[in-house]
């Protein structure tokens, strides 16, 4: 399955876009508000400064003069940001703060309008030129105020805001991730449980799932139940059919051995061959279905527990004992259905028992994601590769004289193949046949 778009990335992107747009909107709004506020404050300041300046103009003996005591001290501090120029007749009074610079000349503007222009030392000035009539004379008063510091102050504030906003954004994304992880925890739990169902460790999903997930879990459980029921039904149907056929087949098998039929050798042999084929076919299909786990919990194959009774059964069946060397770790447990692996090992060992002179070696170990099972005997083995292929094929009997259906190895190979494993015939160092089985370990977690 190709993974679709990430939920996390999706939500993170949404939050990022929303918060960024919101931040930009707030910053723009604040900027707009500040511009208006700054204009009003600066204009009021300049306006009142020009009025106060007018108030500081006195009439003396030699004409009008500026009363220094009534002047704002800021006008005296060099480059303080507060400046004035007063023109009356031919006289021109400048504030001391202007020092050796000049106010920018504003042309084309009618008196009484606010003008912004760059001032000395990179200052940003708001200028107001007004004309007053006093003491019978015309005074042109230009007052300038540096609004730069105010703007700079606001900028600092704005930058701080953007920085904090960015931090808040990062924190939100982090929080979102943590929340999502927690919110998706039940999904991870469900995934683990499904893997456990697959591995046969549990039958259905259980636990507390959030309201949004509960219907899905319920659906999965229903599906599991239905699949299991269907599997059990068809397995039972096949099993019942197979077993029901075997008893009449046993009757036929006995009938065929009656004297009157035995006397007709050709007929007897033909019937016998067909009956054997029928029996073999049923056995092969049954062994496929018997072991199939129809959901439910898996009963693992534990060599230390399950091999000794199997060997005892084989010894009984063949009425002869052999030296069987088992090699596996004592606590070994294979997560393969016990009945199925018993069927595989039973069939392979049954074959080995038929042919072995005195000894069979069985080794089981797990490595590199596979179970390796090796069963060797010291019998004659199968040298011909074609014969080996036939032994794993369909209803093949290598030696008619040996009891049994001659398809044990094929049955074992069928079951192993159903588990995506492999069964190969090789030559044993003991001289006989070595059956090598590789079974993939059942992954309990899809990761």
């Amino acid at each position, binding site marked *: 399955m190709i993974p679709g778009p990430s939920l996390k990335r999706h939500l993170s992107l949404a939050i990022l876009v929303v918060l960024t747009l919101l931040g930009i909107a707030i910053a723009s709004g604040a900027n707009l508000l500040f511009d208006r506020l700054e204009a009003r404050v600066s204009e009021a300041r300049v306006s009142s400064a020009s009025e106060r300046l007018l108030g500081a103009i006195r009439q003396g003996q030699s004409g009008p003069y500026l009363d220094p005591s009534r002047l704002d001290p800021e006008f005296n501090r060099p480059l303080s940001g507060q400046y004035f120029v007063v023109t009356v007749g031919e006289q021109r009074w400048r504030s001391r703060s202007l020092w050796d610079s000049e106010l920018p000349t504003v042309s084309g503007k009618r008196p009484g309008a606010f003008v912004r222009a760059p001032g000395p030392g990179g200052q940003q000035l708001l200028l107001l030129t007004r004309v007053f009539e006093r003491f019978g004379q015309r005074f042109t008063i230009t007052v300038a105020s540096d609004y730069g510091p105010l703007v700079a102050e606001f900028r600092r504030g704005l930058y701080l805001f953007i920085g904090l906003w960015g931090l808040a954004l990062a924190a939100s994304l982090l929080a979102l991730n943590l929340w999502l992880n927690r919110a998706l925890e039940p999904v991870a739990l469900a995934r683990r449980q499904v893997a456990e169902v697959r591995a046969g460790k549990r039958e259905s999903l259980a636990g507390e799932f959030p309201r949004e997930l509960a219907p899905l879990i319920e659906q999965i459980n229903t599906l599991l139940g239905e699949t299991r029921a269907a599997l059990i039904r068809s397995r039972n149907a096949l099993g019942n059919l197979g077993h029901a056929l075997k008893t009449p087949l046993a*009757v036929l098998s006995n009938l065929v051995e009656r004297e009157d039929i035995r006397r007709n050798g050709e007929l007897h042999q033909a019937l016998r061959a067909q009956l054997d084929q029928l029996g073999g076919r049923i056995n092969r299909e049954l062994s496929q279905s018997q072991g199939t786990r129809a959901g439910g919990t898996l009963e693992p194959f534990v060599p230390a527990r399950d091999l000794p009774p199997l060997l005892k059964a084989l010894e009984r069946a063949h009425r002869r004992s052999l030296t069987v060397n088992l090699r596996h770790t004592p606590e070994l447990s294979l997560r393969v259905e016990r009945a199925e692996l018993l069927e595989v090992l*039973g069939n392979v060992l049954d074959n080995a028992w038929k042919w072995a002179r005195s000894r069979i070696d069985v080794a089981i170990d797990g490595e590199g994601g596979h179970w390796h099972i090796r069963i060797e005997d010291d019998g004659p083995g199968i040298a011909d590769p074609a014969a080996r292929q036939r032994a794993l094929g369909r209803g093949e009997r290598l030696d008619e004289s040996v009891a049994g259906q001659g398809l044990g190895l094929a049955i074992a190979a069928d079951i192993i193949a159903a588990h995506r494993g492999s069964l190969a015939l090789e030559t044993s160092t003991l001289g006989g046949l070595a059956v090598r089985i590789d079974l993939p370990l059942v992954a309990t977690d899809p990761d």
Partner: protein
Amino acid sequence: MRLLLVEDHIPLVDELLPRLKAEGYACDWLVDGRDAARAPSDEHYDAAILDLGLPGRNGLDILRDWRAAGLGLPVLILTARDSWSDRIAGLEAGADDYLGKPFHPDELILRLRALIRRSHGADVAPELRVNGLVLDEARQCVAESAGAVALTGGEFALLRYFMLNPGRVLSKWQLAEHLYSLDAERNSNVIEVHISHLRDKLGRGIIETRRGQGYVFRGRGP
């Protein structure tokens, strides 16, 4: 040898009973699992052939009950359920042997023979050899150095029972119990006639008479 056959498929029983009889086994036959659960405690059987899928009671449960009751008779399970896990379950329930259906009738006879011999502590060899006497069970004759001595079915069954219980005093009642099925007509004279024929064919000392007690198999031994 007296056998208990528990099998519910009548056509199979129809085939098995004559074959078993021909092999010198007296057979009692039961169909229902509930009857089988009670049967061996009152009768003296030498072996039982038990099907698993029985009406009334499952064969494995019956076997477990028998074993729990201390019944030691050898049991051969004859069933269609013959996967290896089924076989192991059968042996663990107390079966002595297990044969899957369909089976070759000769295979059943061979296994039965081996089963009974083992339960009497005899070797599992092609012939039964006891005290210098060699009985060929397949051909139902005694192998002598001069040649084979043919036996009738009754003589064969009787001699086999003697040879599996050498040195034991067997009453006529015991012999009848183990050689004839429930439905057979029991006539103690038949046993005397068979013993007399065996003595004629194999020598007088082969079976010793203990007055008031019964008979003891001596064979050719000291």
